[in-house]
């Protein structure tokens, strides 16, 4: 059961081979046993989870269950969930219990009947690529406990990779679903901006943030995504589109698929082993009937600098609400209002968050706004146009998800720029608002490698199909880390 796919779990629940309470208990026990070493979860509430499981069992018994009712999942601690502590990986919210549900949580709990096993660790306010910025300590990569799981959705990635949960939610602002998926041998999808509601998802960079599924396979991602999407009147950037079943086209043959290979993704700066695995995956696709075309994303070298203007700018403003006035952390001693603000924010935020608030405040300041913020917005448009051009000659773009496999804890922590460069292939996708995936495609020195798939706007179904066919032909995604019993 621990290794079962969502479809298998769904069938087992429907056939009453196992109840949701039993299944949830299985995973809760596993979390209890393994989480102390992995640190993937920051909050587990057995009683709450089992209550949801019992309600799911009742739905199954009454015949009102959906396809995923009763299946336990892990929730990234960026999603507000009523009655659950919701920390966003920060001391600032270490004691914040949300009085309301994020739209995604509401859909998963109320509509789909999924059971939440707990809230997963993450980089503080989703700012990081290694999970080392979390107030609750780093997450260990199940493939090598001396290495990072990636970030910011590192807790979700480690939880699913170690089978502490069958699947999990993540969020992706610059690669925070895809990069940890790559580093932990998972399949992860960042949907088109606007497909998954951001209401109740604690904002890092509003114009880039997007929630999505992290799971063992494309099929699992498709099923989980089905429960997460939908127009939301509470999110003005949510897109009003017809509902689709992302699992519908999974088996479509790939004959005639045109794969775009941007030369910028196959140049220097990428680990040779990673590159070899990615090229082998592309060769596999050719066997499946796809053809490759060369494309170019000439402005992609500007994506990291543009991102590190836009994302901190939005973050500096989004994080202003954490002021110690209404909820969350407040410094114990202060002389006056300004002192309260300063001490609260100095003590409540970690170093990386403060660095980004400073960068963001700087680039929005009078006299710098045009040179940084506006310039970055112009670059953002150029980057989006590059993709529009590229998609004229191909259906899906492929390349590495991350330039390296999982690095060691502490290896890049002292050098923010090195850390930022680990998202060099994923960031442009967020700037353009496109859907992107990471799919397991091999190992280097025992560490997983991710293949990135980038689709055109609203091509989630196609990406999942492209990933699924590959997973039918390969077994990389079925490999599990050893030694976690």
């Amino acid at each position: 059961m621990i290794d079962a796919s969502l479809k298998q779990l769904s069938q087992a629940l429907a056939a009453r081979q196992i109840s949701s309470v039993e299944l949830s208990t299985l995973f809760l026990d596993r979390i209890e046993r393994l989480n102390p070493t992995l640190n993937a979860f920051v909050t587990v509430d057995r009683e709450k989870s089992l209550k949801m499981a019992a309600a799911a069992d009742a739905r199954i018994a009454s015949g009102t269950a959906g396809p995923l009712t009763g299946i336990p999942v892990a929730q990234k601690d960026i999603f507000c969930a009523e009655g659950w502590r919701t920390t966003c990986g920060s001391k600032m919210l270490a004691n914040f219990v949300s009085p309301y549900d994020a739209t995604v949580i509401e859909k998963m709990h109320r509509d789909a009947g999924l059971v939440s096993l707990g809230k997963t660790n993450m980089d503080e306010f989703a700012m990081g690529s290694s999970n080392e910025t979390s107030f609750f300590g780093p997450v260990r990569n199940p493939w090598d406990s001396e290495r990072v799981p990636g970030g910011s959705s590192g807790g979700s990635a480690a939880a699913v990779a170690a089978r502490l949960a069958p699947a999990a939610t993540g969020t992706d602002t610059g690669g925070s679903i895809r990069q940890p998926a790559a580093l932990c041998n998972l399949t992860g999808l960042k949907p088109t901006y606007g497909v998954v509601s951001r209401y109740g998802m604690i904002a890092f960079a509003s114009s880039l943030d997007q929630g999505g599924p992290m799971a063992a396979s494309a099929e699992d991602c498709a099923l989980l995504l089905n429960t997460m999407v939908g127009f939301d009147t509470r999110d003005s950037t949510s897109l009003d589109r017809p509902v689709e079943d992302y699992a519908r086209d999974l088996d479509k043959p790939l004959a005639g698929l045109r794969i775009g290979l941007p030369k910028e993704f196959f140049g220097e700066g990428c680990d040779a082993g990673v590159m070899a695995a990615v090229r082998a995956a592309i060769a596999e696709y050719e066997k499946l009937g796809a053809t490759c075309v060369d494309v170019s994303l000439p402005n992609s070298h500007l994506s990291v600098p543009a991102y590190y203007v836009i994302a901190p700018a939005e973050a500096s403003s989004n994080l202003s609400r954490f002021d110690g006035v209404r909820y969350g952390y407040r410094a114990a001693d202060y002389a006056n209002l300004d002192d309260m603000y300063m001490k609260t924010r100095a003590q409540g935020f970690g170093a990386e968050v403060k660095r980004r608030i400073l960068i963001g405040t700087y680039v929005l300041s009078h006299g710098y706004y045009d040179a940084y913020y506006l310039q970055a917005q112009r670059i953002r448009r150029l980057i989006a146009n590059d993709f529009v051009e590229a998609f004229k000659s191909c259906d899906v773009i492929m390349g590495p998800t991350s330039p390296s496999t999982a690095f060691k804890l502490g290896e890049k922590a002292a050098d923010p720029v090195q850390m930022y460069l680990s998202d060099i292939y994923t960031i442009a996708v967020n700037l353009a608002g496109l859907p992107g995936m990471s799919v397991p495609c091999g190992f280097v020195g025992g560490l997983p490698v991710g293949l990135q798939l980038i689709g055109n706007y609203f091509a989630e179904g196609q990406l999942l199909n492209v990933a699924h066919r590959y997973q039918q032909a390969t077994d990389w995604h079925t490999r599990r880390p050893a030694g976690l019993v």
Partner: protein
Amino acid sequence: MTQWEVVIGIETHAQLATATKIFSGASTAFGAAPNTQACAVDLALPGVLPVLNKRAVECAIRFGLAIGAEVAQKSVFARKNYFYPDLPKGYQISQMDLPVVVGGAITVQVGQGDKAYEKSVRLTRAHLEEDAGKSLHEDFHGKSGIDLNRAGTPLLEIVSEPDMRSSDEAVAYARALHALVRWIGICDGNMQEGSFRCDANVSVRPKGQAEFGTRREIKNLNSFRFLKEAIDYEVQWQINEIEEGWRIQQATVLFDPDSGETRMMRSKEDAHDYRYFPDPDLLPLVISGDWIARVQGELPELPGQKRQRFVSELGLSDYDATTLTANSEIAAFFESTVAIAGPALAKPCANWVMVDLAARLNKEGREIAESPVSAAQLAGLIQRIADNTISNNIAKKVFEALWNGEGATADEVIDRQGLKQITDSGAIEKLVDEVLAANAANVAEFKAGKEKAFNALVGQVMKAAKGKANPQQVNDLLKQKLAG
């Protein structure tokens, strides 16, 4: 000595009359217990997002159409970033580079009577934004309370050009704007509750100088009287400073109504860098031509249009027409009166509403909407003057009786109190004969050429008639008899 010219521009915050807040579904009703009308969005809980209230946008469109401005096809909400305990998000959602309303003008009537003149004040822009909450410093010893009921209340910030040249012009503009936002139903105009508040940018310059002087901004003036007093004080203060050899420093000041003085709140050096940038949580506001047309169709007749119609259709003077369109209540009262009395009596209707009724209301400090004399009653009274049933003098008595509720209609009062004018020439002749017989001395004086003696005789006849005799008939008969 230098002649100084005053330059004033006004920024007004008009609270829009929507049932719910501009970015959340919480109620905007005034006076609820603290923090009972603040939802998750207003509290800026982690993860919440703003959703624009369509009604607030419609208010902005109405306003733009009413002042002949351009309603922007695309406008953008921006974040104004600063920390304050009653600003839950740490930023205010407002509009900066692309406001929803651009340009336009308001024609105002300055002064009264012969000295009255008209002036057109141009508007720079009007934009939508949210209000902050309220900090309560009084009730909590050593601490401040925060009430977020007001947080997120929709505001239209209306910015004028620096077109006003006196505090009178500033007040006339503020009054006209106040009347207009109420007229088109976008703001209740309640100044005590803060629904309509003005900031005045004031500077002075030597007459004839082209460049503006350095301005100081007087914040949060919530009555027309304070607006005038604050500007007058500030102008004198600035002139004194300059004449004593100081330079005016750009600053924000507060007006203290108790002392009647303005005092500095912060200098330009202390001004925040608000780090405006487009709010990524909200899409650009796109207003279609269809939407504008629909709102246009729902607009009432505007003061300017009504004013022109009063002149062209009812033959009123410009001054009368302007006065009667000063606000929607006066206009409505006047129109109801004319509707009953008939358009031929528009001029006396105008006089009664503007002069007699206005004076009586003013004496009791009442608004026209609370007038004890209804439009129908006034119209009935004016008709009885026109058909000679009563004289103007008697009419004032009847009006007073109606005001005091001594009858349901003018006719009833006239009837009950026997105020009907005596027009029977036989009866008047009898009175005239009696007066002439009893006042031989006056008759002799008149015949000796003293015109004044005639007036005394008229007075005697009216007195004998208890004021009810038709004055024209009395005059004619007296002249006839004295000539005979």
